[in-house]
């Protein structure tokens, strides 16, 4: 009776498919992105939240906050000489700069060539004039319960900004409209989305994820067990 070596064929097929996936997987999924997204739209959000597919939008209190330009205010308070509350037209009129960075999520995925445009924190500090006692800045999201913090020194590192534009378009709701913190040297959870208040404080107040065990200083490649 003839025998076929199907066992090794199956083994080699799996290994071969894995090798092709390693070399071309991202390119293949990029090409299939639209059809996959269309197919994925029939999957309930509850299931999507449990099983992430590729990189995903995290939210601690879904649904995501909604931005209304008429009502939006950016408040900068705490240990400052001149607290301010800016309307959206006033925020939009602030001097803006552009930059391109790689975005790193603490769960391991990375998105390269993310183009941001936004306002340097120093621009805001010049307006509010932080007191000498202001050592940390708490960035408060419109998403209930989400807050994160940077030291004042970290807020003026190169590349740190409040971004209102991504890939040449106004920030989408999923990505934190109308403004989000960007600090490319740290993992994504520091990049507070749907930002509406900045509070300068004298002492460290750990943010949402820090209270759940993540590192306060979330340096890419040098924190959270990496």
């Amino acid at each position, binding site marked *: *009776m*003839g*025998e*076929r*070596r*199907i*066992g*090794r064929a*199956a*083994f*080699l*097929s*799996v*290994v071969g*498919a*894995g*090798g092709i*996936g*390693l*070399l*071309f*997987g*991202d*390119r293949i*999924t990029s090409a299939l992105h639209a059809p996959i997204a269309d197919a994925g739209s029939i999957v309930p959000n509850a299931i999507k*939240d*449990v*099983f*992430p*597919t*590729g990189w*995903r939008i*995290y939210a601690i209190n879904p649904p995501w906050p909604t931005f209304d330009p008429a009502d939006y205010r950016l408040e900068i308070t705490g240990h400052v000489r001149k607290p301010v509350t800016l309307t959206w037209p006033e925020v939009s009129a602030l001097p803006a700069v552009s930059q391109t960075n*790689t975005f790193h999520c*603490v*769960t*391991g*995925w*990375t998105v*390269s060539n993310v183009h941001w445009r936004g306002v340097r924190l120093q621009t805001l500090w010049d307006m509010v004039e932080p007191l000498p006692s202001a050592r940390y800045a708490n960035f408060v999201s419109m998403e209930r319960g989400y807050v994160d913090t940077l030291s004042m020194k970290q807020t003026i590192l190169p590349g740190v900004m409040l971004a209102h534009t991504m890939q040449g378009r106004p920030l989408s709701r999923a990505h934190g409209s109308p403004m989000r913190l960007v600090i490319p040297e740290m993992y994504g959870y520091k990049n507070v989305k749907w930002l509406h208040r900045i509070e300068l404080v004298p002492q460290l107040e750990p943010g949402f*994820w820090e209270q*759940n*065990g*993540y590192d306060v200083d979330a340096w*890419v*490649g040098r924190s*959270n*067990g*990496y």
Partner: protein
Amino acid sequence: MPGSAARTGTERGRPRPVYVRRFWPEERSLHWLLAVTFVILLATGLILYLPAFAELAANRRLWKSLHLGAAIAFWAGLVVLVASDTGGRLRTTASEVDRFDEDDLRWMRWAVTRRGDEPPQGRFNAGQKLNTAVVFGLMLVFSVSGLLMYLQETDAAVRGRTSAILVHDVATWIAVPLVAGHLYLVLVNPSTRHSLRGMVLGTVRRDWARRHHPKWDADD
């Protein structure tokens, strides 16, 4: 090949089951090495992967160490088992898993259509052979993609060069249903769960073997 009677006889006129050896200690050791390390890898991997475990995952150093440790333990254990397999049992097993005869091919068609009688099978049925080959292929894919993920975490220059995360994810999506089906067959399904005894103690009932693996039993 296997089949030495482990226990025979009667007790007070009641026939005692006759057991035949199905799995050698080398095979059982390899199976349990894979099973234990896979469970650790899956559990720690899910903690690092699923958003529901994001708070647990804050202790990333611990879970990552366990995950990497289990992967290293698997390959180190495999090397030790193969190196100490002087009798060539594992090589024989690999050869059995590799070779599919006409009945195996018919069995695979039967497994899908369920038409007609189940084609007779040897010590491993075709599904078990295929599962073994695919799982070991997946272990290699997991290991290579996992090593690349480890390297890209430690060296930014490696990031984005390969689709390691995607491949690791897809391999998980394939492996989990395979393992779930395997667990169903050995723990739940009444007609097949006796096979667990073979992997724990090495022996199975002769009548069960004749029913499920008649070609192997015929070689006894």
